[in-house]
């Protein structure tokens, strides 16, 4: 996964910065020294590009110089504040394409269920936020820092609260293991080099946008299959830990597997994920006898919030 990026980066470095092949091999330190040389300290607090109304949440990261963000990303040691800031940008962009469903009761409900599930993981202190977005597409998304989305199209197919918990738990799993952040860390090096070749970023927001690519396209970028299988395993476990029926996520996967391949509502999901049947097969292997001693969980169908 990392290799192609490195190769491309090596070519870019060799081509544009006149580095010899030997230097290009040691990319980490080469890049670090370039960063030290080329990135000038930030002259002023840049807040012009901060979208109105979000200053409060981005305050901690805004105090850091942009090159620090870049360096931490390159080193693969992004702080939680930076992770949240990246996720916030992605979430804001996604919402620009698909707004929230206008139903306060629904949104509050999903946040309560989602947070309960997220609290079962090892990152309970992330600012977890959940939203149902107004699309008939059948899908769910996660962005770094704890932003989780489920489409109205997928929500409508759910039968009970445990199934909602299962879907959200899969997405929580991606955030817990920083799957999307790692994906960005692998590709942002190119953006970093781009920044050195003339077009300096005016602000961290610009830099973050550059790192995540165009708009919310990053959510349509597939993770590798193993990341999806891992999120499925975590999803089942978090659902079970929360007291729900551990087999709710598999039930949703089975349902999605029955949607026709050619149905446009699943084309993005099927493009970015292994087929549900493959995922269920992997889950069956992973679960095996491991959940035998876990008492049966609850479906919580009675209070499940139905779409209006």
């Amino acid at each position, binding site marked *: 996964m990392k290799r192609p990026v490195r190769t491309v980066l090596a070519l870019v470095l060799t081509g544009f910065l006149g580095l010899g092949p030997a230097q290009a091999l040691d990319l980490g330190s080469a890049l670090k020294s370039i960063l030290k040389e080329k990135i000038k300290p930030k002259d002023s607090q840049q807040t012009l590009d901060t979208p109105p109304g979000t200053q409060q949440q981005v305050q901690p990261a805004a105090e850091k110089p942009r090159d620090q963000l870049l360096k931490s990303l390159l080193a693969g040691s992004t702080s939680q504040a930076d992770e949240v800031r990246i996720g916030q940008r992605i979430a804001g962009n996604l919402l620009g394409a698909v707004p929230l469903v206008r139903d306060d009761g629904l949104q509050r409900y999903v946040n309560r269920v989602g947070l309960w599930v997220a609290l079962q993981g090892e990152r309970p202190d992330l600012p977890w936020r959940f939203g149902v977005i107004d699309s008939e597409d059948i899908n769910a998304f996660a962005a770094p820092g704890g932003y989780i989305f489920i489409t109205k199209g997928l929500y409508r197919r759910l039968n009970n609260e445990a199934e909602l918990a299962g879907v959200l738990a899969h997405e929580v799993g991606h955030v817990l293991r920083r799957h999307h952040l790692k994906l960005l860390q692998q590709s942002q090096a190119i953006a970093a080099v781009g920044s050195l070749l003339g077009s300096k970023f005016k602000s961290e927001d610009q830099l973050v946008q550059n790192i995540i690519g165009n708009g919310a396209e990053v959510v349509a970028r597939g993770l590798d299959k193993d990341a999806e299988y*891992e999120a499925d395993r975590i999803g089942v476990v978090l659902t079970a830990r929360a007291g729900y029926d551990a087999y709710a996520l598999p039930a949703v996967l089975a349902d999605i597997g029955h949607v026709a391949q050619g149905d446009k509502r699943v084309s993005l999901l099927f493009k970015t994920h292994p087929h549900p049947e493959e995922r*269920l097969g992997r889950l069956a292997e992973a679960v095996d006898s491991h959940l035998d001693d876990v008492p049966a969980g609850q479906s919580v169908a009675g209070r499940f919030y139905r779409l209006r």
Partner: protein
Amino acid sequence: MTRMLHLLCLGLLTLPVWAGPGTLIKDEDLKSSPSVAAARVAALAKGSNVEILARQGGWTQIRAGGHTGWVRILSVRANTSTGSAADIAALASRRDSRVVAVAGVRGLNEEELKMARFDAQELQSMERYRATAADATGFARAAGLSQRRVPYLPAPAPAGSDPNAGPNAWGGVQ
């Protein structure tokens, strides 16, 4: 016994989702009751057609080849439909007319996502709905949900690397 009854009630509640024809996705021992310790009724091969009858926790009751018994729920795939024609029929038969109306709608696509512009107002709306840990915990308690200790599941070994793991896996409860 009380636990069994309790499990049975839960199983009955969720029965409709799982009932119907299905296929076995791995070789399985058909058990006389939903437990690893239960006696083997029959050995079933992967790909066997089965009738899904009931569910109890992590187990599902099936009928296959004249035998009735229990296998792990994830070993069975329900064949609600097999082709697109059946899916469309199922979709059309839904009472919710909106579902039918959207069947021809295109889904989210990459172009749309690429062109997306940051929407600070929507993001702020989302912020409004955030739950606190106390709120979420109270809401869970209200539904009778209680936390259980469940370790993370290890990634299964790549296929074919442990050909002898099968028989012993049934040997005992861990």
